[in-house]
């Protein structure tokens, strides 16, 4: 997945218009980044990257970029 595809996948998780997310956006300003979106993100990470996300990791996310950084297979 390239950055564009990752952003599109996150937009789907948050159920918002394609193209509305930018990497430098603060999550606290995005109303749609809620517990429901976080659950969709957890499922996405398992399906696409075979990764298990911990709740503590999600609590530490500050920006969209922080989420993007996790969207890759385990090294």
């Amino acid at each position: 997945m390239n950055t564009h595809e990752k952003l599109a996948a996150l937009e789907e998780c948050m159920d918002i218009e394609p193209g509305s997310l930018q990497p430098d956006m603060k999550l606290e300003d995005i109303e749609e980044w809620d517990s429901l979106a976080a659950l969709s993100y957890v499922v996405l990470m398992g399906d696409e990257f075979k990764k298990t996300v911990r709740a503590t990791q999600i609590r530490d996310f500050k920006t969209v970029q922080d989420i993007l950084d996790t969207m890759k297979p385990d090294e």
Partner: protein
Amino acid sequence: MPYLEFLNISIAALAGCTPTPVQTLEAVKLSIPDKVIAFQKLTGVKERHISLSRQTAVDLGCSAAKRAMDSIGWGPESLDGIIFLSQTPDFNAGTGNSFLAHYILGLRNNAFAFDIPLACSSFPYGLSVAASLLQQQHIRRLLVISGDSQWHFYPDGNPVAYPNSAFMFGESATALLLERDENAKPIIISLNTDGSGYKYLYNPLGGVRNAWISMKNILLPNGDIFTSSGKFGYMDGIEIMNFSITTVVDSIREFLQTHAVSFDDYDGLVLHQANLKIVKTIAKRLGVGLEKVPLSLDHYGNTSGASTPFTMVTAYAGQDREELALLCCAFGTGLSWGIASLTVRPKCIVPVFCSDDRFVEADAKPAPQP
């Protein structure tokens, strides 16, 4: 891996009962916040049954038990014991629901009764305990009731007037009659626990440990703040999602591999109806088509411990087949989960019915004025 294998136990009857009052999402939509509506995409619950006359798990469970016993002509004197799977006792935990059911149904005094207070994972546990007891020469017929009550979580016992909770849970109870049968097909069960996950789904103020606390907000072991509000407990949604779609899926895969079987060998995968997203994700990860994964949550909600056997009732009662091979998986608080491979004859399943019956003797009544 402690697999339990039973070669001589068969399901004689299975019945499922639900309270009559139906609450549809459509009808409550206008009075609940958009956030809750959005949540419905995850839960998949379109309608649910919750008692408005304060029926308890005992009331619903006994209705189901009577119907199951009538369907095969088993009188109460023929039962050697009753196991009640519930986390919502009518009274205190020690005065188990099983004792009330023993009395209401009229079992012999030398028939045993005890409760297993498990939550959503209870079905394979109850089945394994009953099947183990049935290995005893003098125990031939057992009743296993599953059921939890939901209405009491809502202020004034009225779920219709409480708009901020998710439209997710419903009420049902099932009665499973088991007997020893030398011609039975095998039942294979695996039981699993991850006690470290106790903190992801529980009521931190529900028992003794924190009973001294009077403040409203408390810091939980996982760093979350829990605000006490009525009787609702705490859930770490992310960790419960991880558990359901990773740990549970891995266990089912391992179960299949160990016994050298695949989903081609089964007519259905019956999952605890946690929510639609979890059911669909488990099925997808296991590569099972949704036509093989029955749903009851759309019309009845997540009915907690009863939801796995209740889904067998809603999906398979009246099916024109001699028998069905099913893989059942129930999972929840504990963290606790179990898998049961079993065979059921659809003609032994009583179709879902509604009941308004209540055991009024035990109701509190105003004391007479002096």
